[in-house]
């Protein structure tokens, strides 16, 4: 099962950083050079991303392209990269959005160009790093490091209220992730006796597996609670808190219902590039975190709190959609639509069942493409008019037909019309919800999302594009330039490619889905799922766990410990 | 022989007096003198205990008192210099006036 080591992911992660240094060296007034260098960096990143995707073999071991180095061994941390199916797909998405993000801001950002592009590149590295990390602490480091460039992107290059929004974004996320850090440390100490602990994901998971099994047996039947191991007992007692901390951190990022209010502000204020990355990739970190960490590490708690999380997801779906209906600001509306869409992702994942989970995974990609594209396209309009309210537009279709076509296509993707990518994801999520252990009404309620989705998205289309041209300034708008066309085209094409030929991607996702479901199900043995032990245990390339050097008092040492003196 | 407790009582009273002086007096110099009083209360306690314990292991109370006296002297040197500088900038030694920086 041992995959051979490959340095490819290092390039995926750190090439943008290298280009960031390159950009730093360029003179600040050479805007063209800076943009070009950044674009080049992103394109190189795209190539490596595609390469990684192509190199990933769905039939192979769980984590591939592994690379591991000793790093901060003292703390139990190592530099361990590797991707599974979901991660590699998200890597591809991130890599794809990279160049588009640069292109989208080609004319939008004219001041402090250098800082802007450095931020973009650093952000790219952080995102890739978070996706490729196989060490939980390494993931956390990248997860948090993402905040910094994003903070600058919103705070420096955003609109009027940018500083407040950036601050809110930063602090909101920080609260959650710091609590998660504590939980992570807690888990670390639970995971084994001194000297065997490590933040390595597989080690952490494998060490907790037995305890998790005991906990779930106990939670199902009190008879099993009598002779729990110490770890299991601790996990039983404190697991909910730890899971809660993990869930909170990721729920804020997703964002799920009551902790979502940072998103509209951040999106509204962020520049196009910021919104694109935020919607396209950053939000996925939340769902990805649930998938990779929160659920497999605490399967019993995941089951126990499934209903709560599902309720929040359902509220997210319906409530997010209702919020959209109350908005005037288009960016805010798209932001709330993200709440709704990400609710689908979460719901799918919470079905703990193959179809739903697959749908969730696919929906993550879809949301990246379609919401990313929505922000991109609206950004083009915003660049022309610098207005965000729906009432400021109207009849745009007349002036900008190609733009309108693109926007419509993305709209249909967003409301999951069959044939577009959104449908496949949403269908699978809903199917999964029905097939899961959740009550039927949950599925029916979630399905109402398809109605609301159409209602608000078409409302936007109606208000912005159709009807008579109400403002003179809108009549003379230029249609897409070549650059803009080229920027939007890949996403528009992807909508169809992913809608009509999803199978190659689904096949890459499939092993990850299977394992995710199996891992969650080990906490609730289900007659339908035969969770083979082999599937549950993680197999990764192991480095010898660095032992925390114990006090090796040399016998020949003549000095006594002071305490011995009497 | 005067019991150690009496010594201790006296030193405690001195200490409290010094502390009250620091808290209540308004003149910087007097406050400083109150601090010296507290230090001397410690000295008194050291001497008293030294007598009780006799010549025991480690630094004895007597020696300690000497060190404290030396430190107090150094403190006086630095402290007075600072108080002079303070007087030069403010023309007053009332501590209630010394509150440019607050909140």
């Amino acid at each position, binding site marked *: 099962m041992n995959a051979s080591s490959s340095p490819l992911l290092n390039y995926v992660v750190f090439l943008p950083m290298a280009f960031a240094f390159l950009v730093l060296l360029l003179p600040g007034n050479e805007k063209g050079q800076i943009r070009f260098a950044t674009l080049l960096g992103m394109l190189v990143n795209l190539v490596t991303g595609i390469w990684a995707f192509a190199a990933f073999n769905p039939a192979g071991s769980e984590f591939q392209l592994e690379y591991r180095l000793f790093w901060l061994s003292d703390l139990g941390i190592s530099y361990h990269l590797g991707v599974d199916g979901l991660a590699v797909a998200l890597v591809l998405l991130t890599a794809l959005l990279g160049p588009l993000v640069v292109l989208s801001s080609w004319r939008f950002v004219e001041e402090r160009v250098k800082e802007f592009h450095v931020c973009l590149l650093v952000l790219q590295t952080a995102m890739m790093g978070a996706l490729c990390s196989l060490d939980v602490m390494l993931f956390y480091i990248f997860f948090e490091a993402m905040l910094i460039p994003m903070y600058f992107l919103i705070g420096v290059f955003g609109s009027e209220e940018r500083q407040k929004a950036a601050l809110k974004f930063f602090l909101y996320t920080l609260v959650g992730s710091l609590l998660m850090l504590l939980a992570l440390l807690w888990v670390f100490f639970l995971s084994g006796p001194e000297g065997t602990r490590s933040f390595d994901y597989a080690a952490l998971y494998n060490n907790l597996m037995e305890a998790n099994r005991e906990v779930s047996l106990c939670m199902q039947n009190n008879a099993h609670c009598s002779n729990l191991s110490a770890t299991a007992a601790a996990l039983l007692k404190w697991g909910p808190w730890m899971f809660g901390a993990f869930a909170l951190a990721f729920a804020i990022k997703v964002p799920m219902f009551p902790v979502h*209010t940072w998103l509209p502000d951040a999106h509204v204020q962020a520049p196009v590039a910021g919104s694109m990355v935020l919607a396209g990739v950053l939000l996925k970190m939340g769902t990805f975190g649930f998938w990779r960490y929160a659920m497999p590490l605490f399967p019993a708690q995941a089951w126990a709190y499934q209903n709560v999380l599902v309720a929040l997801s359902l509220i997210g779906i319906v409530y997010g959609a209702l919020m959209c209906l109350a908005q005037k600001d288009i960016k805010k509306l798209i932001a709330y639509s993200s709440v709704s869409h990400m609710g689908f992702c979460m719901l799918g994942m919470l079905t703990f069942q193959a179809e739903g989970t697959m749908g969730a995974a696919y929906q993550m990609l879809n949301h990246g493409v379609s919401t990313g594209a929505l922000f991109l396209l609206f950004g083009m309009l915003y660049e022309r008019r610098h207005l965000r309210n729906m009432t400021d537009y109207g009849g745009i279709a007349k002036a900008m037909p190609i733009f309108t076509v693109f926007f419509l296509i993305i709209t249909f993707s967003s409301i999951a019309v069959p044939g577009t990518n959104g449908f496949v994801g949403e269908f699978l999520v809903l199917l999964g919800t*029905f097939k899961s252990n959740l009550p039927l009404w949950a599925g029916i309620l979630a*399905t109402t999302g398809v109605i609301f989705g*159409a*209602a608000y998205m078409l409302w936007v*289309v109606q208000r912005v594009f159709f009807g008579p041209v109400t403002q003179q300034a809108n009549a003379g708008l230029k249609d897409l330039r070549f650059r803009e066309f080229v920027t939007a085209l890949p996403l528009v094409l992807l909508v169809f490619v992913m809608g009509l030929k999803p199978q190659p991607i689904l096949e890459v996702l*499939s092993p990850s889905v299977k394992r995710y479901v199996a891992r969650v199900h080990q906490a609730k043995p289900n007659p339908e799922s035969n969770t083979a032990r082999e599937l549950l245990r993680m197999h990764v390339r192991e480095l010898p766990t660095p032992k925390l050097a114990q006090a090796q008092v040399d016998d020949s040492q003549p000095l006594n410990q002071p305490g011995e003196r009497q | 022989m005067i019991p150690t407790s009496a010594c201790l009582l006296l030193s405690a009273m001195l200490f409290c007096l010094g502390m009250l002086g620091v808290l209540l007096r308004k003149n910087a110099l007097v406050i400083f003198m109150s601090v010296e009083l507290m230090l001397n209360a410690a000295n008194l306690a050291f001497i008293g205990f030294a007598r009780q314990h006799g010549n025991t292991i480690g630094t004895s109370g007597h020696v300690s008192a000497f060190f404290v006296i030396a430190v107090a002297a150094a403190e006086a040197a630095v402290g007075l210099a600072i108080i002079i500088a303070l007087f030069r900038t403010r023309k007053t030694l009332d501590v*209630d006036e010394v509150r440019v920086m607050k*909140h």
Partner: protein
Amino acid sequence: MEKLFPEYPFSIQNIENGLWLIIALPLLGALINGVFGKALGRKNVHWVACASVGGSFLLSLLVMWALGNVNTSVFNPFSPDISRYALSADYGTWFSAGSFKVSFGLWADRLSATMLLVITGVGFLIHLYSTSYMEHDKGYAKYFCFLNLFVAMMLTLVLADSLVLLFVGWEGVGLCSYLLIGFWYDDNAKAWAGRKAFITNRIGDFGFLVASFLLVLLVTAAVREAPQGTPVSSYRFSTGLSEKGPLAFQSLSALATTLAATDTTAKPNQETPALVMNRDIETGPLKGYSYAGVLTAVLLFFLLGAAGKSAQLPLYVWLPDAMAGPTPVSALIHAATMVTAGVYLFCRISYLVVLSPFAMATIAVVGCLTALIAALIAFAQDDIKKILAYSTVSQLGFMFMGIGCGLFWAAFLHVVTHAFFKACMFLGAGSVMHGNGDETNIKRLGGLRREMPWTSWTFLIGTLAITGIVPLSGFFSKDAILFGLETQQLTGYVPVLHTLYWLGLIAAACTAFYMVRLYVLTFEGKRSPLAKLPHAHESAWPMTLPLVVLAALSVLAIAHGLPLLSLPHSPHHSQTLMEAYLFPVFNVANQLGADTQKLLKTGLDKTEWTSLLWTGWFKAWLIALVSGGISALLYFKLWRGGRKFPAILEPLRRFAQNKFFVDELYELLFIERAKGLAKGLYRYVDAFFVDRVAVHGTAQTVGFLGRVLCWFQNGNVQAYASAIALALAVGLTYALLQVLS
């Protein structure tokens, strides 16, 4: 039969493999027109558009031909049998996850083939018509792109071999409908009408999706619990599942057969198998519900879906507004094809429908009420297109009644005939508008018979057909349905059907009345003084030719409705051509209905049956004639020329004219509620409670505490010393407490 359809020299295999071309051609046309439309120029645009649909039509003919051949049969992946008179093709997996799978599989049997011909045939005519009708429009290429796309989507719907793929077409046609209704998007009202249509359809789609998901669960449960020897427990079925997924129609057919085979309501003495239709499902998400119950729920959800697409109660409101689109679009989408998708859906899953008499009765009731209400509203409308729209709604209601009483072939026959005569009338209306400066108010038209002879004659034929005058097709299809209501033995709901029969007659009478009114006011009499143009002009040949063809078809379609053949296995009565032709399609349904004794043919013997048929026909004919006659009398003589409507009926008229205020009711009950809810939630929950109180509140509390604490930091050195002393005092007290305790 075989004699009717001589063997075709091309191999069936080739036709089977080429099924995708039927869809691909219009899709390609749409793509070409959409991307290169501007560069191509008008001529090439309509050439591409018409040719692609025409090509599909020819291919459809080939399919039709192939399906006539007795050797045409396909291998059923879900069971060892062979499906006769069908073609299928599988172009690989679309998507799969877990145990679920959907493939790009096409399936053509006689039902879909008939639809294919209607879609491509009528579609082609309407394309042709449009070349003239849209001649001067700026969005010419766009129009044909959408229209081609629509045809492609409709063909997908019809050719799909699974519910999911059918849903692609289902949503796809809705999408095109949205685009075409809002074709003239710079008119706000028109664009809103498009949105209304789409969202109403979405409500239906919600039902469709829920129904599909429940079906998946049902199949899963059946596979798990079915006893040995039933179709779903066979090995073949499991291979079929892994090959095509649970929502393939053959899978559903096997499910239906299994459920029927284990149904004990009809056979009380039979040994009880493990899986019983009325027994509760034991495990899985459906635990605690019975198979029959779930199936009924599925069908009711499908009814919601179909109501959305086919404009039935309570979701019919979008269709009249949809007339905002170009008139050929109304003809193609909102009369001939898309709106009949609901009927097609029920025909497709007829074997499931017959297993739930309750659902059938509901379908019939919904259809009947829709037919009545729409007809009543149509009475008071003055807009030529609106009247036609309501009449479409009303006719669709008839089709649903046909489904509800289990006469699938009759319902489907009505689909076909309706496609002809309604398309004919819509195109006629378009022609009228074209020749009268886009005037749609029938009160401002009149006397067009002389000025627009082709239009008027064809319209008259259409009117007679829909009214149900004897020799025309509408008579046979509609009366087949009414007859079905009278004679079908839907277990437990026979009285319901009988009641519906009478209501149906009333609806038919209404139809005759308002259609004649429409015809008379538009074409007869004198030209209204309020007309926009002093003289109307007849349209060009690309417009009149389709009218003529469609009118001819409206007449010729009677052939399908005539009871010509008498087959040996149906001794009671003779079959109509349509029934015989579709026999392979609905055979399973009929069989299952009979086996489970849920839906039986009438027990009348041949003579009783024949006399009933003839009296039924006579009644219907009489009613249509009388009602139409009264209408003609009234509008020719009495109210011609601005004469007042009797005052006593005025409020009623107003009520009907305002569509019974249903739109307003919905607005008040749902839309305003939803908007208010959204606004309220946003203002009070999101903005105020979550954001202001919880989030900013926390931040502000923290800031406030900071300022309070700063206040203690007053700069006085003695205050600081006091704090130290105080801390010391507290510490000492604490220590002393420790000592004491």
